[in-house]
């Protein structure tokens, strides 16, 4: 299986982000993601989006995958925004005080400047978190992820389960494919053109039972392999994928700290000093 043909990379890419330690990438991503999810402030969201887009380009990801997931995500998100508006056309005024400024109306539905602003920012925010996540997925390998989680005090056992899952997904997919083919040869029609989607789903489910049973056989061997090589012998463990911190590692780790501290500061400020403040708007 060649690298970069799938969503997940198994080998770190030779790029600035690819070379960073997992223990830098994971905290940085978590801090940035929390910042994005927490704020409705374009002045914070916009710079993060710009940096994310530049980062994504620097990783040279598989364009087809990016395009497909982009279309899927934008459609879903747009639908979500429209539904928000349909449920409460005046939603903007919840977050922005003052008299609503009507722009136009469709039937009994009024479109206010406040709602347009709020919903656009909401769209932008979710879009930013999506691009940020793409950067994360394309820049990290499952092993780096495990090392990064462990560095954030996630127990090594949970980190190991995550990397083992990635290790065996391609094998399991291959097994599933083989079983499907053997059933097709026996006469089970799985062709999308010939049967309805629901029937197809039902037939694929038939396959799931033997598939799960064969997969469970592996679990015992994997558990033995882990035990025999001393997994869990000590509470802490090191990770081969991690290297001695380079200057870029230190720089990005510093950035992660700055973001994390700012997020904490922002949270404290919003909750204690200015709990009733409106979201930021350009016209004030």
């Amino acid at each position, binding site marked *: *299986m*060649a*690298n970069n043909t799938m969503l997940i990379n*198994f*080998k770190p890419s030779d790029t600035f982000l690819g070379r960073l330690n997992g223990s830098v990438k994971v905290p940085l991503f978590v801090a940035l993601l929390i910042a994005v999810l927490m704020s409705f402030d374009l002045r914070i969201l916009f710079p993060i989006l710009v940096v994310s887009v530049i980062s994504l380009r620097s990783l040279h990801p598989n364009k087809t995958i990016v395009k497909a997931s982009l279309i899927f995500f934008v459609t879903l998100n747009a639908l979500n925004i429209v539904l928000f508006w349909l449920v409460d056309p005046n939603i903007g005024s919840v977050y922005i005080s003052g008299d609503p400024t009507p722009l136009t109306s469709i039937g009994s539905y009024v479109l206010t400047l406040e709602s347009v602003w709020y919903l656009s920012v909401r769209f932008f925010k979710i879009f930013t978190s999506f691009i940020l996540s793409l950067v994360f997925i394309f820049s990290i*390998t*499952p*092993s780096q992820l495990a090392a990064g989680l462990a560095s954030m005090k996630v127990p090594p056992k949970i980190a190991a389960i995550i*990397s*083992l899952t*990635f*290790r065996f997904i*391609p*094998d399991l997919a291959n*097994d599933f494919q*083989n*079983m499907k*083919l*053997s*059933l*097709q*040869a*026996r*006469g*089970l*029609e799985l*062709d999308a053109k010939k049967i309805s989607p629901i029937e197809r789903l039902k037939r694929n489910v*038939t*396959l799931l*039972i*033997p598939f799960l*049973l*064969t997969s469970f*056989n*592996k679990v015992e*061997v*994997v*558990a*033995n*392999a*882990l*035990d*025999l*090589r*001393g*997994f*869990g*012998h*000590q509470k*802490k*463990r*090191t*990770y*081969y*994928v*991690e*290297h*001695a911190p380079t200057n870029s590692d230190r720089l990005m780790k510093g950035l992660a700290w700055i973001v994390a501290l700012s997020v904490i500061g922002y949270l404290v400020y919003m909750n204690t000093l200015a709990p009733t403040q409106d979201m930021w708007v350009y016209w004030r």
Partner: protein
Amino acid sequence: MTKRSFIQFNNFTFRYDSQREPTLYDINLTIYEGEKVLILGQSGSGKSTLMHCMNGLIPFSYKGEIQGECIIMDKPSTSLSLFKIGQQLGSILQDSDAQFVALSVAEDVAFVLENQNFTKPVMVEKVKEATSKVGMHDFLAQVPFQLSGGQKQKVALAGVLHDDVKGLLFDEPLASLDPQSAKAAIELIDELHESGKTMIIIEHRFEDVLIKPVDRVVVMHEGRIVFDGDVDTLLKTRLCLRYGLREPLYLQALSTFKVKLDTQKIWHPLHSLRFPSFTLPAITYEEVVNHEEEVLRLNHVSFQYDERPLIKDVSFSIRRGERIALMGENGAGKSTIAKLASGILRPLSGNIHVKDQDINGMSIAQIGLHIGYVMQNPNQMIVKQSVEEEILFALRLRHTDEAFIQERLLEVLIMTDLKSMRRWPVNALSYGQKKRLTVASILALSPDVLILDEPTAGQDYAHYTEIMSFLQSLHESTNLAFVFITHDMHLAMEYTDRALVFSKGSLIYDGPTYKALSNDALLNQASLRPTSLLELATLSGHDPATLALHFIKEFNHGQ
């Protein structure tokens, strides 16, 4: 110099908590430092349990009741831990894929080091050292999906080689390897033994292990040790036959030819064996011209994947009633041929005909009516809960006439000798019975060709014989063409008439099996290994092909 004991069992009995009867009875066994010991036994003889007792999985992972003692490096195993035992004795499990737990070669080799909190520079050094011992140092960044079974096994070996581990324990190291890789594995084990390590090998492919000397053989049967001595003595006692193990082929052949061997002399290795000369009656192989209907034909078929040619201009045809061995090294294209014939893959050029009909326009399901493909692992094929339902599954998809369906079901149940088990739940079946069931479910569709992918892989001699005699009787009662994808030379010799040998995607031989197996150059080219029959022929001054042919005739006669 006194020998120091490495592992010692004293009146050791073990019963799993989940079982009523002990799995191991009264084991007394001492393995000394620096020894190379082969542990033989059928499936279920207790050899895996014995292995678990040695590497500490018993008592630390599997719970049960222990009587007597197991002493590892002068300490009772119960007073140690999995980790402490692992520092003395490294284990290489049978399933080389599942024990590869990390996402690259280097990480997998470093796994044990990571668990001990080693720093990165130390790990890099140790990984380099361990991987160069097994010749995998150029593959450090490879992901598991890019490696062959033999390579994964080497990685597993490197992963336990750190820190001058004193002994190594191999669980059926040859189970999934082709003949050349198996030979390489045995040679590597021997090299490590030469460097002073204690080696414990659990296998049932007796003759394959014997290409390099072993100090001692232990035979297990029904949870007890029934033999503990050197190879030569074991062979002379003829205990293999009694305990369901396969004797080396040259001994089988000599006893087939009724040659009396002197038990005072050495029987192993073969080149030291002195045997009286024997004569073989003149024999000419009648080229049987098969006039049966042609059921499958490949015309100049080529196939490639990711620009990498996998099959290059292959042509052959198969007639009814033929028994064919499809042979070649791993990756030679054997499975690809089977997938092309069953329509799972489509040729890039050339064409494939099933009974004079081009399969190009046919769906996998339509081709499935003519070409039955039985996968290696029966668990990957069985989808229903009971024997009967499993056979009915495909029948019901193809036919609507209930009377016909029931009639065909009964026929198939009788043919495969599953009638008495027709209502059994599938999980009550043994491996061999499951194999029969998968064959039955394919037979129900009355195919013309049955392709079996490694039908006996990983099976001991008794199960091998069970599965193969079943297929043999099926061959006699039907007029199917059988194609065995295999790298088991014994299987090819005993159960097939014609061999198709592949190497690097090309068909390099198409002819009688016995000729293929007595052709040294051909075997080398296809990364297959000559059997000991060839050496026996040289030593006895007989023509290899004649000797092989005689042996096969006698063998089939005895069936």
